[in-house]
């Protein structure tokens, strides 16, 4: 857990934004990791397995807030993300805030592809395991996301 607690927390935090929500989802994700450890298939990436559980937990939390049990990646819309800020939010660094806003404007699948590639430096194969998709599809999602972010950063001053 020591080597995954920070990356998993930040991954969830980038999706749900508020610290309190990220804390709840991260804690629940790690409890699920421990309780379902026997289900882990060693043929797959352990990191991807943990991040998949964490992503599902973040989507479950967003779904509960929307009134559903759990959302799929395709159901998460940009306006559901990034709406809550709290005291653990640093608004003094304008460019980092703008980058996060750009990411949060993306559809969830592109957001996931971008975050896992850019921040967590995962391979497309690992990202595909997390998202339940193919490596080729996630590569396309990442490149589209990157282009959209660049456009957002240049056009929204």
């Amino acid at each position, binding site marked *: 857990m020591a080597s995954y607690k920070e990356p998993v927390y930040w991954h969830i935090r980038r999706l749900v934004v508020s610290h309190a929500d990220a804390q709840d989802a991260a804690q629940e994700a790690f409890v699920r990791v421990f309780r379902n450890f026997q289900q882990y298939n060693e043929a797959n990436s352990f990191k991807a397995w943990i991040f998949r559980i964490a992503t599902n937990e973040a989507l479950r939390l967003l779904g509960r807030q929307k009134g559903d049990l759990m959302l799929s990646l395709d159901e998460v819309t940009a306006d559901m993300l990034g709406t809550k800020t709290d005291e*653990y939010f640093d608004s003094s660094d304008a460019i980092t805030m703008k980058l996060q806003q750009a990411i949060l404007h993306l559809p969830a699948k592109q957001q996931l592809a971008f975050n896992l590639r850019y921040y967590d430096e995962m391979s497309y194969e690992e990202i595909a395991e997390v998202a339940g998709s193919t490596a080729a599809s996630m590569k396309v999602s990442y490149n589209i996301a990157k282009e959209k*972010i*660049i456009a957002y950063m240049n*056009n929204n001053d």
Partner: protein
Amino acid sequence: MIKDMDKQFDFEQVGKRMPYNVPDGFFDQLEQNVMAEVTAGNIATEKPRVKARTVKMTIRILLAAAAAVALFFVVTKYMPSDTTEDCFANVELAYNNLSPEDQEYLMEVYEEDVFMIDEEIEY
């Protein structure tokens, strides 16, 4: 168009910085919370088990009791009088009449008997 925009914004300007932070000691607390929840869950779902150590101790006590009863009958059988000197001699005789395994077991019980050791120290 996108290539032009790419020239204007460089991801290296931001790197991996984020506008988010966490309370001091948060990650250690997170780990503790998870371990506490996992442990609590295991205790709640775990069936009560008899510890192997308890079983071993029970067997030893029963064996010791059986050996004491056997020794009592052997001593009673070979004890002709009630004098102290005869008593020690009879105990020794009875001990010699035991099988080597029983002798070894009695010595083991005697050496591990906390109360007998305490008495020796008081003298």
